Structure formats: structure tokens, C-alpha cells
């Protein structure tokens, strides 16, 4: 791919290629992360997981997609049909747009925006609204309860998430994701995760970011939006067929985006841990290790109760991230960057 970027091609063509590439990447990952999730769940519970469709169940996502596509997309009577149909699209579209500024490799980013980081969070906040719309327009009790929960959860976790990002901005001094990765060149001790000279609490900042990422993507143990044991399927209750399928794809696209962002901000993006051969494969290795950890966390912890979730955010994560922000600001002021 980096060879492809080296070839001088016209800007519109380049953008179309990246658009196709990102959509293919997200589509492929959404399908196969479901497979990986189910396989992983199986392994964590000492089961086999999907094994019947194709070798090791590898054709299972295709079978699932065919099944979802053949189902009718029902709009419940009395529901707000326009919003109901728009909600799944609003979940997946921001994730697709945000991936445009993620630098996969040294020359592999659709756009190196100088405000890339802020753009991702601007579009990321649409996700909450989409889930809320989906829940509200369904005209269903459970969906509405779920929508209310999603909003309070996401508002609570957006704050520490953005505080962490502000800390990172102070430390790196740029919002361009490509520059952030370039600054972390040469060995894992240069990664932002281990930049203890700038902020001795950096690993904790990473942990805060990771927890907020789980909460923002509504992943277990924070899957309040889809608390199937309490709220049927939460905001997705009334969705059938591909409407639900797109929500699902959106969830995985958001996980992918969150993990990419964590890789870029903390784990040195495409940089090699030993300072050798930087390239897109290092990015993918780190990305999928993080994705594995997300699956690992999901199949380890039970869903938290709602007050526990809010307590964690307001009582621990927000003070902690505020503390790291003030600390790194003070250190930069005193010691210089």
C-alpha cells in the first residue's frame, strides 16, 4: 500500500481509493471481528466457538450476513420512520469518516488533517446522538430506557476521555495524528505511553483512555445500551435484519476506531517497538492486540450496575484525568516540553 501511495496519482482518485479502502477495511473487520469475538468467547469459556460453516467457522460471517440481508427491515407502527432508519447510518458514518485521518502507515492516511484529533472527537460524539435517536424513535419502553442510559453514560465518559486527549495535546503539542506518531519514533521507550518525563502518570492516562474507549463504544462491561438481560436488546430492540446489522457493524467500526486511536496516541502507531522497519504491519499488530484485549475484557467482567458506572466516571476517572492534566501542564511549564 505504501508503494501505491508513492505512485503519483491524482488527488480525486487517491481519495476514492482511500474511501473504498476504508469501507472495505471496516466491512471486513466488522464481519471478522464478530467471528473473532465468538471464537474468543469460546476460547475463554473453553468452548470451540463457531466451527461448522467453513474451516474453523471462517464462513460464518458470510452466512450471518446472508441471513440478515434476507430479513425484512420492519419499522414498528407509530415509530418515527425517518429517524428510525437514519439511526444505524448515523452510528456507522462517523466511524467511517473518522478513520480518514487515522495514519495506518508512514504514507497511508487518507488525510493528514492538522486538526485530526479534534475531528475524531467531534464526529465521535454523533454516535451518542444516533443511539439515542434509535432508542427514542423505536417507540418502545426498553429502547427509551436504554437511550436515556446511553446519554448519561456517554456524557459521563466523554469528559475524562477529552481530558485525557487534552493532556496528550499538551504533551505532544500537535493535533495531527501523523505528527503524533512521527514524534514517537525509535523504540518503545519513546512511545507516549512511556513518556514519563513529560508526565509520570502516563500509564494511568492510557488506562483512563482505554476505559473511556470501552464505555464510549458501549462495550461490556459498560454495555448499558444493549443490556440484554434487563432491556431485551436496549436501543436495538425494534431493529431487525440489516438495520440491526448496521448497528452491529457500527459498534465494531467504533471499536476499531477507538483501538486505532489508542495505538496512535499511546503505542507509537506504525513505529516498531525496537526502532526497526516502521510500517503498516506494526500498526495492525498493535491494533489487533488492543482489539483482542477488548474482547478479553468483555468475556472477563460482568456488566457493571449503572450507579457503579457513573461512580467510576465521576468519582475516579474525572478527578484522575484532571489531575494528570494539571500535572503535565505544570511539568511542561516548569521543565519545558
Amino acid at each position: 500500500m505504501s508503494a501505491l501511495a508513492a505512485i503519483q496519482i491524482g488527488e480525486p482518485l487517491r481519495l476514492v481509493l482511500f474511501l473504498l479502502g476504508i469501507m472495505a477495511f471496516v466491512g471486513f473487520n466488522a464481519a471478522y471481528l464478530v467471528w473473532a469475538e465468538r471464537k474468543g468467547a469460546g476460547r475463554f469459556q473453553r468452548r470451540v466457538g463457531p466451527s461448522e460453516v467453513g474451516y474453523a467457522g471462517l464462513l460464518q460471517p458470510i452466512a450471518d450476513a446472508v441471513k440478515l440481508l434476507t430479513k425484512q427491515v420492519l419499522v414498528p407502527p407509530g415509530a418515527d420512520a425517518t429517524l428510525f432508519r437514519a439511526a444505524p447510518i448515523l452510528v456507522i458514518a462517523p466511524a467511517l469518516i473518522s478513520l480518514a485521518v487515522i495514519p495506518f502507515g508512514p504514507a497511508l492516511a487518507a488525510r493528514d488533517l492538522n486538526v485530526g484529533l479534534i475531528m475524531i472527537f467531534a464526529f465521535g460524539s454523533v454516535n451518542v446522538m444516533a443511539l439515542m435517536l434509535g432508542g427514542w424513535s423505536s417507540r418502545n419502553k426498553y429502547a427509551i430506557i436504554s437511550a436515556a442510559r446511553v446519554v448519561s453514560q456517554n456524557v459521563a465518559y466523554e469528559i475524562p476521555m477529552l481530558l485525557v486527549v487534552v493532556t496528550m495535546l499538551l504533551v505532544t503539542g500537535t493535533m495531527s495524528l501523523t505528527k503524533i506518531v512521527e514524534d514517537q519514533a525509535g523504540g518503545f521507550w519513546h512511545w507516549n505511553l512511556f513518556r514519563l518525563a513529560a508526565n509520570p502518570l502516563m500509564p494511568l492516562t492510557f488506562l483512563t483512555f482505554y476505559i473511556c474507549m470501552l464505555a464510549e463504544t458501549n462495550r461490556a462491561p459498560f454495555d448499558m445500551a444493549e443490556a440484554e438481560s434487563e432491556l431485551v436488546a436496549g436501543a436495538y430492540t425494534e431493529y431487525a435484519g440489516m438495520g440491526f446489522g448496521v448497528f452491529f457493524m457500527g459498534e465494531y467500526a467504533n471499536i476499531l476506531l477507538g483501538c486505532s486511536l489508542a495505538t496512535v496516541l499511546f503505542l507509537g502507531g506504525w513505529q516498531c517497538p525496537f526502532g526497526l522497519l516502521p510500517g503498516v504491519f506494526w500498526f495492525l499488530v498493535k491494533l489487533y492486540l488492543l482489539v483482542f484485549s477488548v474482547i478479553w475484557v468483555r468475556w472477563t467482567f460482568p456488566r457493571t450496575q449503572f450507579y457503579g458506572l457513573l461512580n467510576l466516571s465521576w468519582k475516579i476517572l474525572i478527578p484522575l484525568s484532571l489531575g494528570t492534566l494539571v500535572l503535565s501542564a505544570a511539568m511542561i511549564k516548569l521543565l519545558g516540553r
Partner: protein
Amino acid sequence: MKESLREIYTGLSSLITGLGITLRQFFKPVVTVQYPHESLKMPARFRGHIELVRDPATGKPLCYACKLCEKACPTDCITVEGLKRDGEKRKSVSEYHLDFTRCSLCGSCVEACKSGAIRFSKEYNLAGTSKEEFILDLFRRLEREGK
């Protein structure tokens, strides 16, 4: 302050302990049996429907149609017929029907049998689409097994 810091510390360390436990399970072998492809060996005292026992010396069924099992059965689900074949000293079984729809696997027939000619089978794949499939012809079954 000290209390809440300790709470955070114990909470976090318990989360890490949990992650460690699940990761260890992740790398252990799978324990589920993939049923249609593989199945477990039934234990020695498993009670499937009864079956006739072959005489190891001659290869013929041990049963000589004394009908004690038929009488012992509390639900009348066994029907035995015997006939005296040429050149044999005593009767031998010619028909053995078991109406498995009524059998409760009580084992009275197995207890009643003096020659040990019937025993519980290890058969448990017993799905069927009609009632008639469960009126089992155990004599034919034994003959089929011989082939």
C-alpha cells in the same frame, strides 16, 4: 482519601486477577464434546433400551423365550415368541418386540432374566418422527448387528 485510594487499589488489582484467570483459561484445551462429530463413551451402568445378548460360543442369542421378562414387565411392553428349530434341544427366540414408548427403563426384565440374555444397551440416539419407530424389534436388531 486513604480509604478511597485503597478501594481503587483493591478494585483494580481484583480486575487484573480476573483478567489473569480468564487468560489462563484461554490457553487451556477445549472441554466441550463436539457432539455429532464425537461423542462420549457411555458409563457402564447407563440404561438405554434393552437388547439381546449373544452367546459368545455360538453367536446365537442366549434367550430361549422363557417369557419371564414379559411377565416381569410392569407396563407390558415386551412381547417374546420362541420356536423349536430342527436339531436343537430347546426353544430359541424368534421374535422379541419392545414397545419403547411405554418402557420406563425400570430394569425388572433384566433382573428377571435367569440366563442373562438381555441387558441395557448404550443406545441414546433415539430421535424419531413416528411412534412406530419406537416399537423395537430386538431380534432383528441383533441379526443386523451380526452383519
